[in-house]
């Protein structure tokens, strides 16, 4: 999908926080100098085309008493799809990427309790027979998720 300058301005703005007001899109549209309906149409199109993978609140599992953990597995290439199906079947797997390394599957577990991390990782080990390495964050140095569109 081709993105024009307006789409890019929208994408850059929408990576920042949306106000908690009754008509949040109208407020953003006014900032950008377009109408509310144009903003909604463009957002809908970008979501349909998957330029925007998700739009809405980002939750912090840790603030709810839960936890996040980055995990990695060395999956034999011949079994990759079978293992992937088993791993992704867990609702706790929030996102998952294939990467260029012997440790070729990297996913984030988001669970409602700290114990949920160990329980889910252990379950994946049992189901796949592959060790799940766990890399919980010790320190976070920046929360700059923005990419310039």
């Amino acid at each position, binding site marked *: 999908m081709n993105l024009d300058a307006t789409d890019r301005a929208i994408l850059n703005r929408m990576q920042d926080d949306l106000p908690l007001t009754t008509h949040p899109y109208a407020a953003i549209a006014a900032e950008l100098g377009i109408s509310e309906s144009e903003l909604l149409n463009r957002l809908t199109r970008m979501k349909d085309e998957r330029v925007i993978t*998700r739009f809405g609140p980002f939750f912090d599992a840790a*603030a709810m008493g839960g936890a996040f953990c980055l995990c990695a597995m060395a999956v034999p290439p011949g079994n990759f799809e079978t293992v992937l199906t088993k791993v992704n079947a867990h609702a706790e797997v929030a996102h998952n990427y294939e990467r260029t390394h012997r440790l070729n599957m990297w996913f984030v577990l988001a669970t409602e309790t700290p114990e949920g991390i160990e329980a889910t990782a252990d379950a994946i080990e049992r189901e796949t027979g592959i060790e799940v390495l766990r890399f919980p964050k010790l*320190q976070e140095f920046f929360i700059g998720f923005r990419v310039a569109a």
Partner: protein
Amino acid sequence: MIDAKDREIIEALQGGLPLVPAPYAQIAADLGIDEDALLHRMSDLKSRGVIRRIAAAPNHYKLGMTSNGMTVWDVEDDRVTELGTQIGALPFVTHCYERPRALPDWPYNLFAMVHGADRNEVEEKRAEITAILGDACRAKDILYSTRILKKTGLRLKTKG
């Protein structure tokens, strides 16, 4: 911590915010509560850090940022905070964390995500990180992502 009402709200919102003029009114109607009550609750969840922000997650690939490298570094423990802060402040680093090593397989304790239009651009950025870390870095690697296998964000389990 969250109570049962918060939980209902989180469940109603985890699929995303509707793209309609009054999205909170729609969610509130689904939950059978007032829009004001919903906004009040959400504001409270935000002040407690349960909601970090309400925003779009862009697809880096569709934005032409087709090369996505997880750079990893083995940095001396007593310098990781100072150096991690410097790396995290670089404009092209989107996430930067200290994580435990998994020896002997995995000697790396500093992770920094770098995105670019192609691998050359990512390598140029990675070289900047190498220069900053200098002698404090004992080993390094980069893992490019080759496929998004899942991207759903947090999902609460529906309790029966």
